[in-house]
Structures are given as structure tokens and as C-alpha cells.
């Protein structure tokens, strides 16, 4: 599948933003986070900024972005529509939570309630994002039980790493948050390995015999209907050289998981500026790492239509 930069930026940024919102909502409500205005501005501000920038980026993918509002109508059948509805609904408790925290400098009572509702809505939105891909039967690498939980895990992971960096940068150390980040990075790394291991065992969900109705024997494409690349090949027939995919996977191992895990461990074991620096490094390497992970999520996914062109996007 064609790795569109707008969609990669969208899913990565909203994932981190909603993940951060989940942890802010839950931990503020449980009194772990400082009630100060500056921390609220930094934390909730960053979460809402990431979500908003991500959603605006998703509009760049549309052929007719001025009609985007129509996408809220078909939530009964469409995961994309459900995502649109969930993303807008989440703004209500999220803005109430952020406004209450910033203006009242309190994280209890109504602010805590808004925080918990915002966290639930944010998590639900990430689930809908994952389901958009997980529900597509023609793309074998997406139509697996790994896709949707992956989106949730990477969102919670990037949110926790960001929150830990903000806490450490504002000199409010929290062992609990650092541990949450550490455990989620480890879980994310495990999940990515499991996913890639599973992907390696996948074959095309159908065959060219079945796709052409020509039962029996071997069917081989000997002539395409067009001489140049058409929409189908540009959008669904994206191919990535295996050697490049392996190199990029190594970047994902190192940037999205390896360095953040080691840096977060250093942050847990140390204190003061060492812990602060390590936490910021974890966040700064995690984001490009996840962007590469998301690029590969698209580039390595193969669509059944490529069978008609003589391969499963070899």
C-alpha cells in the first residue's frame, strides 16, 4: 500500500496525542500529577496540539477536504466515520478537562471526572483508528488480530513516554509514570516483533486462479491492460525492496523501542538532570521511530488486487 505521508503523520500524531490524553486524564484524576497551571498548559496543551495537528493532517489525504464534515454521518457501518465522530466527541471532555485544570488549577472533582471521560474517549478513538485497517479483508497484513491492539499499545506507549519527558523536564519526577512508560515500551517492542513474525507467515488471502475464475493449473499474467502505472498500481501496488525494509525495521527496533527503553530505564535508576535528559531523549527518538514504523505499516502491506497484475506485490 502507498505510504501517504499525511496518513502516517496523522496516525502517529493523534496516537501520541490521544495516548498522552489517556495518561493525563487517568493520572490527574488519581492525583499523581501536579495541579499547577504551567504543567497543565504543557501537558494538556501538547496532547490537544498533537491531536489537532494530526486530524488536520488527515484532511490533506482527502480529494475533497472541504466536505470532510460529511464523514460524521455513517457511523453505523464505517469505522472511518466512527473515528471521525469519536475524535470530535473527545474534544468535549478533553477541552473541559484542560480548561478546568488550567483555569482552576485543580485535578479533583469535576475536573477529574472530565479527565476520566476524556481518557475513555481518547482510547476509544484510537481503537476506531486501528479498526479502519484491521477490518480491510483485501490487505492480509492489516486484517489480523495484531493491528488494532498495536495501534492502542503504540498510542499508550508514546503518550506515556511524552508524559514522562514533560514531568522530568518540569522537574516533577514520578517513578510511576517512568515505570508505565518502561513497561509499555517493552510491551510495544514485544507486540511489534510478534506482528512481524506473524506477517512473515502470511500468504495472499486468495489465488490468481480464484481471482480469475480459472480453476486448475497455473495462471500467469502475460499482459497488463495498460502500459503505464494506473491508480491501482500507484495506490495498492506499492513495492519496497526487502533489503530496505530490513534496514528500516532495524531503525524501528533502535529508535522506537531500543533507545527509549534504555533511556527510560536510566531515568528510573537516576535522578536530577540525568533522568531529565534521558527522558527527553526517549521521547525525541521514539517519535521518528514510530513514524518509520507507521511508514512500514503501509509500505509492507499487500493488497489482493496486485494478484491481477501477476503477483502479490512481489
Amino acid at each position: 500500500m502507498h505510504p501517504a505521508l499525511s496518513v502516517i503523520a496523522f496516525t502517529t500524531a493523534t496516537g501520541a496525542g490521544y495516548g498522552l490524553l489517556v495518561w493525563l486524564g487517568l493520572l490527574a484524576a488519581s492525583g499523581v500529577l501536579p495541579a499547577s497551571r504551567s504543567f497543565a498548559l504543557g501537558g494538556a496543551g501538547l496532547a490537544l496540539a498533537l491531536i489537532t495537528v494530526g486530524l488536520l493532517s488527515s484532511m490533506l489525504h482527502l480529494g475533497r477536504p472541504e466536505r470532510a464534515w460529511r464523514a460524521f454521518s455513517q457511523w453505523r457501518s464505517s469505522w472511518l466515520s466512527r473515528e471521525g465522530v469519536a475524535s470530535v466527541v473527545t474534544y468535549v471532555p478533553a477541552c473541559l478537562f484542560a480548561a478546568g485544570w488550567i483555569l482552576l488549577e485543580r485535578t479533583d472533582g469535576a475536573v477529574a471526572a472530565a479527565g476520566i471521560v476524556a481518557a475513555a474517549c481518547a482510547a476509544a478513538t484510537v481503537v476506531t483508528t486501528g479498526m479502519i485497517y484491521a477490518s480491510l479483508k483485501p490487505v492480509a497484513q492489516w486484517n489480523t488480530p495484531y493491528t488494532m491492539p498495536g495501534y492502542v499499545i503504540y498510542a499508550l506507549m508514546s503518550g506515556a513516554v511524552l508524559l514522562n519527558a514533560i514531568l522530568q523536564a518540569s522537574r516533577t519526577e514520578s517513578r510511576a509514570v517512568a515505570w508505565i512508560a518502561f513497561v509499555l515500551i517493552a510491551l510495544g517492542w514485544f507486540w511489534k516483533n510478534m506482528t512481524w513474525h506473524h506477517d512473515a507467515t502470511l500468504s495472499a488471502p486468495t489465488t490468481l486462479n480464484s481471482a480469475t475464475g480459472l480453476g486448475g493449473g497455473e495462471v500467469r499474467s502475460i499482459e497488463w491492460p495498460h502500459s503505464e502505472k494506473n491508480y491501482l498500481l500507484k495506490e495498492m501496488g506499492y513495492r519496497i525492496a526487502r533489503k530496505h525494509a530490513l534496514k528500516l525495521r532495524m531503525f524501528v527496533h533502535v529508535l522506537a523501542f531500543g533507545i527509549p527503553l534504555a533511556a527510560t530505564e536510566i531515568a528510573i535508576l537516576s535522578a536530577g538532570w540525568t533522568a531529565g535528559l534521558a527522558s527527553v531523549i526517549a521521547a525525541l527518538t521514539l517519535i521518528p521511530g514510530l513514524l518509520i514504523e507507521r511508514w512500514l505499516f503501509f509500505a509492507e502491506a499487500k493488497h489482493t488486487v496486485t494478484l491481477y497484475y501477476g503477483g502479490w506485490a512481489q
Partner: protein
Amino acid sequence: MTSLPATTDKTLGLVIDLDTCVGCQACVTSCKEWNTGGHMAPLTDLDPYGSEADGVWFNRVHTYEQSTENGSRTVHFPRSCLHCDAPACVTVCPTGASYKRASDGIVLVNEDLCIGCKLCSWACPYGAREFDVAVGVMKKCTLCIDRIYNENLAVEDRVPACVAACPTGARHFGDLGDPDSPVSRLVDERGGVDLMPEMGYRPTNKYLPPRHRSAGAAPDHVSALDPVTAEGGFLGWVDRMLTR
């Protein structure tokens, strides 16, 4: 609404005969010609006279070779929207632009509602939908709704443009929901099949597999012709005279 109708009054679709299709592309060009001025117009072409010609087409004819133990054959394979009974392209649509008509089962796009998110094209395993980058919306086969119900056309012309154009009669149009319709009987007689039935989209269009070779057909590997043996009579005399 992108929720699917429980039932459709008719199940209009195509039956495509892979035995008689000769790959002439007449259905492809006829489809393009009609539809670039039809319901989903235009079918934009990009760089049509340049080195990277690309454009929107609803019907594409592939060519395959099928090798079996009984020999090999070339099969021309027209590929277009199958107007499925369980079209995921419709249910994934976030705006309601994609819909399946309850009256005749035809799957259509309302271009005024389409936001161009392309998700429907990802949901279709058959590659039936093509995005028009110039207009910013998704386009697809309409089964020529602007021909089949067109009272300005002669009755015999009220068929999809691809069916009207086919010089070998390899394309048939009709109601596949009616078991007694000519197309349904043809599917029964010839053992018509669904494409990718295991994907669960329940396509309406059916494909008739190539017929088995007759016993007298030329085998795959023909040896060189034997030299002519001398004959008697008049022909033998001609042979002897010419050999001199």
C-alpha cells in the same frame, strides 16, 4: 446510506464468457467513450499523449496464460465492478457517497458526497474503483444506468456499453436474481463462477470458464509435418515431373 439493503428487487449484473472473449478491448474503449460523458463523467485522463499516460477506466482487460496438464491456453480477462451482494466498498464509506441500490443492486458513488478518502478502493479486492485525482472523488462502473433505463435509446440498445460493443457476444447483461432469466440459465449451463468467493463479497457478476478442448483440437506440441510420400496416379505423375 452505506448500510446495505437487506434485499434488492432485481440483481442486475454481467455474465462474462472467458471462452469467447478475444481480448479486442472494444468493451474497454466503448465503456470509456460512453462513461466519460455519462453519469460519472468525466473519466479524466492524465498526460494522455505523454510518456506516463494514466486515467480513469471502469473496465480493464488482462491477459493470462493458464497451463494445465491438458495443455496451455491464453485467456483474456475483462475486470470491472462485480456489483457485489456484500460490498465492503459501500459499508466502509464514511459519508454515504457509496451505496447499493435496493431497486436493482447496482453499486454507485454519489460524487457530490464523496470526500475522496480512497478507503472504498482499499476495501475492494477486485480493483474495481479508480480515483479521479483531477476531480478528487472516487469513480466506478455504473452498469451504465444511463443506458439501461434510457428511454431515448432503442430497446435493444438499453444494455451497458461494454455489452453493446462486444463483437463476439462474450458479455451478457441481465437479472441474476431471477433464476429463469437468460443470464441465470447461461450461468447454470456453463458452470459460471464467482471471483474470489472465499473473500465473502458475494459478487453478482459471473464468469464462464473456457470450455474444455474438443478431442480433435490441435495438441499443444505439434511435431513438424512429415515429408510427402510418393503417390501414384495423376498427382504422382505431377510429383515425378516436378521433381525432375
